[in-house]
């Protein structure tokens, strides 16, 4: 009896809690606070934060492995996050399903009206690769313990696309997945703070005031055929990007074709919501103190911020370059939307544009590079998976 009482006491968190776990519970609560109070991508950061709290409760067994006897019968079940992480994230299923849902939510109309903006979505991916160099330098110099795979996974934060970052990190650097996902979603939420100073620094008021010609209307047929064109090009040129872009285009095709509205509706609502809850809890499961409380995380957070900034700058500079050679005027601000972070980055471009000229509505013009950025970062992800994995 006293024995049992002692057991119960030994089972308590008070007795078992290590400092690292305590610190990570605080990190989880901080994410919850940022999600609720500051509105930092709450759909993901709230489940991630709770997931981080739960996985760090000592003795709660959220990441416990199931145990089987010799006959294959379960003697002890696994924890909830064990099944979520190994079933949905390690396999890549959850990010791909989310990407399908994002595809079903994406309107490529503004991009199809002005395909040149795809170049802005390409340029902004420079943030990804510059960050890879940064991480490689930290690794090569021995300051931090980064391999090429780690560097590639860290760089993808600059793609400003959550599911892509999680998909790449789960394949190239699962130990860094927690920090990478947190960095990606945090900076996506911070776009309205990170981007405007860079935008103002790189452009003159005249440039920011440039009005763009109204977009031509895009036909239903173009919208239906476009995702198929992308799938074919991916199949021809970059099969390693096919999981991400294939599911993305599948979702978009369901949206635009007009004959499977009930599937499109489910992909955009019930399905993506269910998977988002579990994806968050699963990503949170990687926020253990060993994996998070170290110098590398500091490196990841710093490099992620740099990636975002460089990507934003590259997009703006490309827009300025295009403006010089293009017959139609291009407002350089929409280049910043090339990082993706849909639709936040496009809204920021619109807002900064309105500051310079109250009649200048850039939102629709910025949506083109914005969705182009999603394609761009998925292509970059494909190159990385092929280069590092192959």
């Amino acid at each position, binding site marked *: 009896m006293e024995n049992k009482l002692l057991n119960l006491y030994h089972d308590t968190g008070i007795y078992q809690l290590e400092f690292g776990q305590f610190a990570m519970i605080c990190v989880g609560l901080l994410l919850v606070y940022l999600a609720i109070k500051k509105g930092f991508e709450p759909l993901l950061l709230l489940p991630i934060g709770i997931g981080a709290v739960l996985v760090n409760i000592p003795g709660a067994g959220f990441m416990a492995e199931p145990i089987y006897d010799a006959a294959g019968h379960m003697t002890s079940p696994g924890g909830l996050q064990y099944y979520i992480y190994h079933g949905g994230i390690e396999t890549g299923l959850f990010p791909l399903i989310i990407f399908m849902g994002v595809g079903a939510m994406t309107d490529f109309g503004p991009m199809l009206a002005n395909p040149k903006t795809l170049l802005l979505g390409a340029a902004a991916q420079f943030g990804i690769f510059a960050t890879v160099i940064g991480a*490689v330098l930290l690794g090569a110099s*021995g300051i931090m313990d980064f*391999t090429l795979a780690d560097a590639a996974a860290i760089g993808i934060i600059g793609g400003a696309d959550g599911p892509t970052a999680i998909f790449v990190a789960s394949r190239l650097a699962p130990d860094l997945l927690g920090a990478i996902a947190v960095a990606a979603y945090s900076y996506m939420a911070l776009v309205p703070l990170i981007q405007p100073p860079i935008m103002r620094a790189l452009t003159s008021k005249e440039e920011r005031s440039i009005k763009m010609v109204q977009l031509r209307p895009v*036909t239903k047929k*173009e919208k239906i055929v476009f995702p198929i*064109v992308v799938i074919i090009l991916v199949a021809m040129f970059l099969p390693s990007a096919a999981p991400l872009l294939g599911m993305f285009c599948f979702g978009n095709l369901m949206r635009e074709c007009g004959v499977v509205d009930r599937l499109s509706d489910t992909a955009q609502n019930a399905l993506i919501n269910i998977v988002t809850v579990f994806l968050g809890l699963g990503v949170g499961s990687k926020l253990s103190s060993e994996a998070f409380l170290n110098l590398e995380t500091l490196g990841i957070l710093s490099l992620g911020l740099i990636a975002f900034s460089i990507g934003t700058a590259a997009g703006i500079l490309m827009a300025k370059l295009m403006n010089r050679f293009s017959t139609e005027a291009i407002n350089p601000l929409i280049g910043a939307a090339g990082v993706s972070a849909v639709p936040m980055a496009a809204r920021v471009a619109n807002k900064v544009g309105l500051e310079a000229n109250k009649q200048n509505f850039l939102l629709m013009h910025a949506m083109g590079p914005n969705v182009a950025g999603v394609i761009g970062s998925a292509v*970059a992800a494909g190159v990385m998976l092929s280069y*590092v994995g192959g």
Partner: protein
Amino acid sequence: MLLFVVHLSTSKHHKQVESKGIDAMSGLFEDGLGLMVLGMGFVFLFLVILIFATGYMSRLLNHFFPEVLPVVTARPVASAPDSSGVDAQLTAVITAAVHQHRNNKNS
């Protein structure tokens, strides 16, 4: 033996940092540089091809299957069925209300 090697090469816990010489370091840097050049090159290449493919697609489609009525860009897919139901209902409600009103007026 082979399995052990596989395990080693995939396990993050055995990264051989300590034995990292100058060769390995510069190798890592070279790899990173290669990734950057190839990566940015490929991203641009792919999206430039996509620009041409998209433009070509649009021209073909609009030439062979011209649409008279352009689609509105922001299409509210999810709410479409609801709103159509509501319209029918709106009509019914107004009809009923007006009908009621006339009856009242006559009485």
